[in-house]
């Protein structure tokens, strides 16, 4: 289940006066069962990059290997690839098209050759995972609120049970609890089934919390691909690219500058809480003496 990219370059309207580079000479390889966070400024090429990974758009130059096979080699089964490498679009509207929610989510599994009954079961399981109840099954996908649409779109891909799950801002538009639920669901699938996840996000807090490694794009180039701690150490460079470190990291950085012995590379509330409480306990013990 590894994806390998070699020298990927994507130019929109190549060869015309309007040509624009969206992805520039990107190479990387994912590890089996890895949770990757993909961040980058608006227009940095994230959506363009991931659409190439499941063969939806073809790179202008460069190669993509899935489990060692070149996906653009002759006779490669592209349909199968799209089932194994599931992609959830940035705007759920691009993905929802059937007359009702259940039929929509069933589409993928049916297309894979499941019987109607099997497909329906898969769809119901997926809808349950994303928190869409039975009362929504017969609704048109266009009669849902923004966050409900996103859940339905995610369910459509989960129902195919892909090996690799690529999500383009899956949490955008979800309420805070909905966001946690969806991200926890994805993280659980990742743990239990060893799925490889690539998650595009504009929330530094979310990638700090969930990703094993973070990929950073800047103007179409891959600038970092490393652990959250390492990546957020470069917060000054990240800021120049329109990104930032998680808010908690800034607090810890300031505390450290002011003389507290805290780890300033932490990025989550839980970690920061532990760090500060450790000092608090030490101090309590000292003053109790």
């Amino acid at each position, binding site marked *: 289940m590894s994806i390998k990219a070699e020298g990927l370059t994507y130019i929109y309207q190549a060869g015309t006066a309007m040509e624009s580079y969206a992805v520039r000479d990107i190479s990387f390889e994912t590890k089996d069962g890895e949770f990757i966070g993909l961040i980058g400024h608006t*227009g940095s090429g994230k959506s363009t990059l991931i659409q190439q990974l499941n063969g939806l758009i073809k790179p202008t130059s460069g190669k993509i290997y899935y489990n060692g096979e070149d996906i653009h080699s002759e006779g490669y089964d592209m349909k199968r690839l799209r089932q194994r490498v599931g992609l959830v679009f940035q705007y759920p509207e691009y993905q929802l098209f059937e007359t009702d929610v259940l039929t929509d989510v069933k589409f993928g599994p049916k297309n894979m050759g499941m019987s109607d009954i099997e497909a329906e079961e898969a769809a119901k399981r997926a809808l349950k995972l994303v928190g869409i109840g039975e009362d929504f099954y017969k609704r048109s996908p266009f009669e849902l609120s923004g*966050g409900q649409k996103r859940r339905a779109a995610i369910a459509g891909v989960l129902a195919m049970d892909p090996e690799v799950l690529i999500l383009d*801002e899956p949490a955008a538009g979800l309420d805070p609890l909905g966001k946690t639920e969806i991200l926890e669901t994805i993280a659980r699938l990742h743990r239990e089934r060893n799925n490889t996840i690539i998650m595009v996000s504009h929330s*530094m807090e979310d990638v700090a919390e969930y990703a094993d490694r973070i990929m950073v794009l800047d103007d179409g180039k891959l600038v970092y691909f490393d652990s959250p701690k390492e990546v957020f150490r470069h917060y000054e460079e990240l800021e120049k690219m329109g990104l930032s470190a998680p808010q908690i990291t800034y607090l810890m950085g300031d505390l450290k500058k002011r003389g507290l012995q805290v780890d300033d590379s932490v990025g989550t509330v839980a970690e920061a809480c532990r760090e500060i409480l450790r000092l*608090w306990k030490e101090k309590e013990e000292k003053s109790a003496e």
Partner: protein
Amino acid sequence: MKIIDAVHVFFDYMRKDENDKIEEISPALSDMNLEIEKGSFVCVLGHNGSGKSTFAKMVNGLLLPREGSVYVADMDTADDELLIKIRETAGMVFQNPDNQIIGNIVEEDVAFGPENIGVPTAEIRDRVDEALEAVNMTKYKDRSPGKLSGGQKQRVAIAGVMAMKPECIILDEPTAMLDPKGRKDVIRTVRELNKRDGITIVLITHYMEEAVDADRVVVMDGGRVVMDGTPREIFSRVEELKALRLDVPQITELAYELRKAGMPVPCGILRKEELEEVIMELLFEGDKGSCDSTDTDGTEPDLGTDGTEPDLGTDRPEQDLDTDREDKSEGACQ
């Protein structure tokens, strides 16, 4: 003066079959009441499906109440003849920018709104330039809007409304697809429009951090307003918010967790700087004169292991941790 006034508003979405027979009714607003002062900056929070976008569409006259009324600058949205005037007064940035983009090139798209309300051509130029500059999209002005990234489209949609210079702007999750800098820029821009030009801002968002700078935070649930107050008041009610599927800013969350674990951190902390001061005072500065121990007098704080909230409001250390913090809403903390 009120610029928006929703009075006992009810609204249901209806699904009809081919023969126009009603198949399903889904209530979206039920007895919604909300008054918004002219010139204020109001943030609207609420879980998915709580009715935020439906309310926004009411203000714009896109949807009409089944019962009750919505007034925009005293104009009833149910009055057809006032509709144009209402849309001039209250501009709207929709949740999905694709629903809003009309022009073939970015510039035309932004000019569409002001043209439609009859702004003189010469002035349109200036307004378009200014709006594109404010959202940092000048360099894309000749592009086709369809060929922009998600976040770029969102910026164009925001510029389109800014160029109309309405008295009030309703933004429905304008920052959902923006990078951290873009988010900051949009929030800064709307704050400027609010402070400098007195434009009323109604910001719908799922980013709790964005509500910190608002004058007022309104929380919706089940198609009505269930909480209403200053950011500090609202974000002191952590458990209540969580029960509504919402959250508090991360800094507030950290302060809350520290407090739960026994540190005497005041509630309703909103900003990094505030928390920083409190922590420094508790952990560091108190240490300097370790002989005059101003901290705990031997009474171990309840660590809350039994899940109950330690009541720290009473056994606070003597020193005043928060001298100039307004509306601490002491005791309202939960």
